[in-house]
């Protein structure tokens, strides 16, 4: 095994996902002041580290999010850099070209910011409030369910299913999201239900 696990202290408790960057140990401050002209300042100085998992493939590499601003103190946090987690047993700090570019995913221009509605026949999305969007969603779901719910089949067997609206679940949401989704979808009697596993 030529992969040397980092000498960083192993973090065992749940709350340890967020740790501080301690560049002081390297005497970085001195380097910066004396030789700024020659060597680029180390850009992660003073950033906050948060442990996360790469959202792409199923290797599930550990990543560290470096951010400015401390969420735990109620500040807004902006992620400025993402790198592999050297403590992670699988990836040991490495990342593939997708993982190494995660910052550009977080900051992608096509990240969605606001709920939108496209009306029938329209050629554009229009911004709406969350309340407007969610009320509309609930209304559409209920209308369709009430109209098309099948309580009993032809033989009189209780089947309680709803087949006219379907749900495609994600492949990168958390297990906790998945379970919340499962509860909502299944309790409505929905059977047209699938996820990305198939493709």
């Amino acid at each position: 095994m030529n992969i040397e696990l980092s000498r960083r202290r192993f973090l065992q408790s749940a709350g340890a996902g967020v740790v501080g960057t301690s560049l002081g140990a390297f005497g970085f401050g001195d380097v910066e002041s004396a030789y700024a002209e020659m060597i680029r300042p180390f850009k992660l100085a003073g950033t906050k580290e948060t442990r996360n998992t790469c959202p792409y493939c199923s290797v599930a590499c550990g990543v560290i999010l470096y951010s400015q601003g401390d969420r735990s103190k109620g500040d807004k946090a902006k992620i400025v850099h993402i790198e592999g987690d050297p403590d992670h047993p699988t990836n040991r700090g490495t990342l593939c070209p997708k993982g190494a570019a995660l910052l550009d995913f977080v900051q992608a221009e096509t990240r969605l910011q606001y709920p939108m509605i496209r009306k029938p026949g329209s050629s554009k999305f229009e911004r709406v409030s969350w309340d407007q969007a969610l009320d509309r969603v609930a209304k559409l779901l209920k209308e369709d369910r009430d109209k098309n719910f099948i309580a009993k089949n032809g033989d009189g067997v209780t089947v309680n299913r709803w087949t006219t609206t379907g749900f495609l679940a994600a492949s990168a949401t958390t297990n906790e999201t998945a379970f919340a989704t499962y509860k909502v979808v299944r309790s409505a009697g929905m059977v047209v239900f699938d996820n990305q596993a198939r493709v």
Partner: protein
Amino acid sequence: MTNSWTDIKNTDLVVIMGGNAAEAHPCGFKWVVEAKAHRGAKLIVVDPRFTRSASVSDLYAPIRQGTDIAFLLGVINHCIANDKVQWDYVKAYTNATYIVKEGFSYKDGLFAGYDEAKRDYNRSSWDYDMTAEGFAATDPSLQNPRCVWNLLKAHVATYTPEMVERICGTPKDKFLKVCQWIGETSAKNKVMTSMYALGWTQHSKGSQNIRAMAMLQLILGNIGVRGGGMNALRGHSNIQGLTDLGLMSNLLPGYLTLPVEREADLNTYMSTRGFKPLQPNQMSYWQNYKKFFVSFQKSMWGAAATKDNDFAYDYLPKLDVPSYDVLRAFELMHQGKMNGYVCQGFNPLLSAPNRKKLTAALSNLKFLITMDPLDTETARFWDNHGKYNEVDPTKIQTEVIQLPSTCFAEDEGSLTNSGRWLQWHWPGGDAPGEAKADTWIMAQVYLRLKALYEKEGGAFADPIVKLHWPYKEAGDPKPDELAREINGYVVEDVPDPNDSTKKILEKGKQVVSFAVLRDDGSTACGCWIYSGCFNEAGNNMARRDNTDPDETGAFLKWAFSWPVNRRILYNRASADLEGKAWDPTRKLIEWDGTKWAGYDVPDILPTAKPDVVMPFIMNPEGVSRLFTRGLMRDGPFPAHYEPFESPVVNPVAPKIRGNPVARVFKGDMEQFGDSKEFPYAATSYRLTEHFHFWTKHVWVNAVMQPEFFVEVSEQLAKEKGIRSGGWVRVWSKRGSVQAKAVVTKRIVPLTCDGKTVHIVGIPLHWGFMGAARKGFGPNSLTPFVGDANIETPEYKAFLVDIEPIPEPVA
């Protein structure tokens, strides 16, 4: 994966077939490179293309896409003929000795019981002879001509090296070298690992591709051991989790199944899920099914699930068809039988087959709701993007509601990786604009729906209004609250039957694991296989101790691995009938005279005697299955079937097109092309620079592979006048795309059944949204048909034609 990523370092031979780990899972592939560099392991790659995995392999063998079963049955044939069999393992731990009923047969590509009109089998003869005591009959001497081993031997005899070359196009010398290297791992101290992915699943016989390799691994004694196993490299970060949690038409969490119409009540439902052991003293773990089911119902409906109402059995919908999978969903939409669709982080306009049909289907909807961090093609299916999305918005009456969600960096919770590790993560930044977590969105939708039902009433409101929703902030359930629910908790005190002053289980506590779940309603558990992930010891998914005693690669204190933190499934099979490791250098667990112990959590009752209880406890046989009875729709053994669109006629069953029991919807059969019209064998795949359709939104990845292209051999390029870097048109019976051409030595024409077969490679990362150049996905071309068992679309093998074209006007 039966094993884990870090376990791959323990192997002697890696076979990458039906996948391309270096390209699609580079950081997992690290462990292949480690095994090579530090163990002297070898790497075999079998693929229609010389891939990035092949670039660091020790042996590469080309194969025509869609012929993996012929290849693998050929390897099994070679191993049987050359005595490359781990006999002790095969005799004790597989059903090789089991005797199959009279009446079972295989002839001309079909097993007994085929009904052509139904495209289905009557599978009643695909089973064991039973003894008077009600157990499966066996012949330990393997003399009975109807024992599984002899049937298998006869079944694979067709697949000689010559036949393999004829079907697969793999040169005989290369094939024999592969056989030789694989056969060497039948030794007790040699192990092979199989790493596969969508190269095996995306076929109309995908499940059987995987079975064929699983059978080979069993014959070699490579399941349940360090460095071995069947390792499915799942595509997405939590697709394992979504599957485990049962977010599929016919599933409940933990691989329990939704009732079907004929199961009118709980007793009837349970009557087919008894799983009585087929041999004396075997565990047959699914006998605990009812405990898991009732505990799930309690987590769903809490106090509303009582013994008197069969634990709210009728709150569950019952299926009238095997499943409403994504293909059936689009078929129903296409027929105008659906009104609404919700896509949560899923972009089916590029992910599902036959894009033209998808657009028509979505256009039939009354409403489409999307939840995604990114602006997807699906959310914009109505938006005209010239030739990349040629639609007229004024003619599409679908209302589209696009809800912005957070991404990984802004949310908290666990993801389950391919190796079944549940790892917790924390948010490091704030979401842009008003983007919200999916948990919040789902809760908000639910609460509004519930309020409407409470106010207005409506169709069968009970399961909605009585859904157990115990969160502190009803409108914003927290990840740890949900994780605790998934783990399971005690609903009612359970007194100790021997001492009424004591309690076995205390109300309100988290259950320690699924071992304590009960079928009387006193426990609740969202997903039994995840139980133990968040118990009274805390959030075990958040554990970060990366110590690894003796460097076995187990990392038992890192995160949590289901089930019960076990790292290698079937690990009892790593030891012989006396409980000693087959290979002392690869010890995993051993029997110390009274119990099982070692580097991993034993996959057996710790006190189960090694010569009595067999290792495959999830099967009623107690052993693994080389012959899978009636559990798969298309045969108890795999058999070679051509893809529905194939450049050659099936050499072993000329009358059969595709998989004889794969579901084909009306109208889709007519949309299959033939090799006269579409002479080239196409396949679709990922590139390492991109992840599906997400990273085209990511600037740097768009830089790394900016533009849609297809790959062809130098020979085909010459024949068709295609210039590398020039433009081509590629079309199938279902659509047409324009692409740049990459002319490469990495693809070569194969000779199959005497015919030259040219391969056209089509990467899948482009669309009309994002930072990369606009392009097409292979799904503009692919056929609308799935695997016979689980309906994964046949993306890996279809037919196209290709021609050079002048540079299109932008």
